[in-house]
């Protein structure tokens, strides 16, 4: 059987040098709560950074691949997206 099937297992394969503060910010948490039934970022984010926890969006920025999908894909442009500080964030070793 193939290994690394779940996103958690896949993320274990990646090296991260996480900063102490997040480079991703939900601008208005109320929009996620009241206007966005799909919470689509929790689906298309390739690292499962966004997790809906009953009334608020949890942002696990430490595992971010810095792809930019959430900034572009959020239907309410509700995500403020910056690069992590120089040297921090994801460190690809191969591909």
């Amino acid at each position: 059987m193939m290994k690394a099937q779940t996103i958690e297992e896949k993320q274990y394969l990646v090296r991260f040098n996480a900063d102490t503060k997040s480079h991703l910010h939900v601008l208005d948490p109320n929009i996620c709560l009241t206007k966005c039934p799909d919470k689509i970022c929790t689906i298309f984010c390739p690292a499962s950074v966004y997790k809906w926890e009953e009334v608020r969006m949890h942002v696990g920025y430490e595992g971010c691949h810095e792809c930019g999908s959430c900034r572009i894909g959020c239907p309410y442009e509700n995500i403020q997206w910056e690069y992590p500080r120089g040297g921090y964030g994801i460190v690809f070793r191969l591909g």
Partner: protein
Amino acid sequence: MPEKFDCIVVGAGPAGTACAYELAKAGVNVLLLERGEYPGAKNVMGGVLYRKMMEDIIPEFYKEAPLERPIVEQRFMMMDKESAITFSYKGLEWGREPYNNFTVLRAKFDQWFAEKAVEQGVLLVCETVAVECIVENGHVVGVRTDRPDGDIYADVVVLADGVNSLLAKQLGFHREWRPDEVALATMEILKLDKNIIEDRFNLEPNQGCTIEIFGDATKGILGTGFLYTNKDTLSVGVGTLLSGLIKHKIKPYELLEHVKNHPMIRPYIQGSEPVEYLAHLIPEGGYHSIPKVAGNGVLVVGDAAQLVNAIHREGSNMAMTSGRLAAETIIMAKSQNDFSESMLDQYRMKLMESFIGQDLKKYKDATHHFERFPQYFEQYIPMLNRAASQMFTVDGASKWEKQQKIWRDLGSTKQKFKLARDMMKAWKVMK
């Protein structure tokens, strides 16, 4: 660090490094900024690097660069749930000089390329983010970095900051990309014994194979899967327009698992060990999405300028050539000490006259067409598979009967007309 350079290049990927290399070679004083721990730390690509455009910069680079395998065979699979129609070209001329293309692992290759630029005299500074362009009197005069006292000045700034292209957006050269202008690709590097790779892909040592996968790899949504051979690893991945993932509510890593476990793909990768998982956006807006690429004191190159030919999976070659053309323009601008937009706009003209502008123009409506009309991937690929199965299955029915069955499978007269019309339209956007 002196606070003024002739040129600052933001981003040490193929576009930025190519530009910096060419500038330094011509004696221009150039600073190359990279936000990663090392060049390549933030960069992802399926893995095909084209020889010609790289050799335009470093002749015979393949004698020393860290490459994986020269590609001698390119396969294309039109895949259904339990079947596939495969086309392939294999040519041994691709396995010897001058070669056509190679698989590479970007973290290794980008570091090597940047080192070559440093040998030419480029000052490479890693772990530094350019957070904005410094603009004075409508002219870009430098960049603000995230380092203390981090303002750095230059006659001209080259934005090679990749698909997200935040700096060009800040300058108003383009609006935010739409979800149908970017593809989200996920990929895994799988460790597998060299000999097993060569057996499974029918290769001699130091030969490589690429497989592009259409149809069920993306569950019918617009995109492709891919499987490439490296030295002792495989790169397997899948990319679809971000808009497609949103519309179909599909998790990209689950789509990757779908590809890996597909009965047409699984035998190739069985027994391999995943060693890295990567996600990245690919700019696929094409010709219509190319932003303004030249302004007063500034040029935009590579992914940041949407220079990707998604139909032929070409991107890093366009990046390198755009970097080289930007460098040519800057050298000319420097000789006349004129870094105005009207001078630097020669870069845009060079770009549009080159294969980059020509190819992007050729396919300017292709992605949008196939996105708007999902039936090509959803219906026609399975139809083609059924037709092949029908024709090649020997079951006592005559070939005429089989042809009639295939004809009936195309649907009502109305559906047949629609199919014919769709084929004409596809020809129009691809020709």
